[in-house]
């Protein structure tokens, strides 16, 4: 099943990049540097979406005591962390030409950084607890506490940012999006989404095999292996 999502992701990426580089016009204000938007914004969206989906699975695993959902949360975390890192990296690379600095304490970039810390915290807690049962449930609690705090962090950073610096040119207020720019970005977002699903499915299969080597229900469900 994972390979299906990989294929879709590959096709969408090619299509998205084609639009991004060949169809979308040069931006009158930022020239060509705005083309980074085609991976920066999708990565940022995915980093947030994956955290929410991860917390959803974590909650299900905690409440229903179902091991598979906790494993799904465990499988999503690295991809979410990767997306956050990509969003930060591309944000810095985009900020350099537009704002003249590698790192700007823009509200969104800052909360993206904190989101990366949340992912790192989740994975660090998961890695340091040997017993998988306790690892699942402890990290599930951390993910849920994180989900409650993400809006708080975002708004306090927003308030803090406007207090100190005044509203700097934030990313989405960039020039009105030509339709092709928007479609390019949406296609790339979809591609990133498919990619994340594919990677997480592959990782969850590996986690299942590592952890439940002999469990009977495993052999039926993944007989194809």
């Amino acid at each position, binding site marked *: 099943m994972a390979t299906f999502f990989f294929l879709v992701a590959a096709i969408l990426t090619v299509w998205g990049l084609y639009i991004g*580089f*060949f169809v979308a*016009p*040069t931006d009158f204000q930022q*020239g*060509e*540097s705005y*083309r*980074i938007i085609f*991976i*920066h914004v999708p*990565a940022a969206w995915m980093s947030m979406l994956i955290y929410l989906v991860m917390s959803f699975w974590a909650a299900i695993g905690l409440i229903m005591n179902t091991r598979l959902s906790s494993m799904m949360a465990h499988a999503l975390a*690295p*991809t979410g962390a*990767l997306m956050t*890192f*990509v969003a930060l*990296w*591309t944000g810095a*690379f*985009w900020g*350099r*030409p537009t704002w003249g600095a590698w790192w700007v304490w823009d509200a969104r970039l800052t909360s993206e950084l904190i989101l990366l810390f949340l992912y790192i915290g989740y994975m660090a807690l998961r890695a340091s607890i040997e017993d998988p049962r306790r690892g699942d449930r402890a990290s599930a609690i951390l993910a849920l506490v994180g989900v409650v705090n993400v809006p708080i962090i975002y708004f306090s950073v927003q308030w803090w940012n406007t207090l100190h610096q005044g509203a700097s040119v934030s990313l989405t207020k960039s020039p009105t999006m030509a339709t092709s720019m928007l479609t390019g970005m949406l296609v790339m977002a979809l591609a990133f989404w498919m*990619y994340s699903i594919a*990677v997480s499915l*592959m*990782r969850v299969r*590996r986690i299942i095999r590592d952890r439940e080597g002999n469990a009977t229900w495993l052999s039926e469900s993944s007989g194809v292996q």
Partner: protein
Amino acid sequence: MQWESISDFFAMGGYGLYVWGSYSVTALCVVIELVDLRKNR
């Protein structure tokens, strides 16, 4: 079509470093993740 030539494409209107810098790192992260997954299938 935007670009007259391949070199123009890579120059990316003077922002080549930034645009290709971010795209290459993204591609690198994806490759690392896939290799890691493929390694211990």
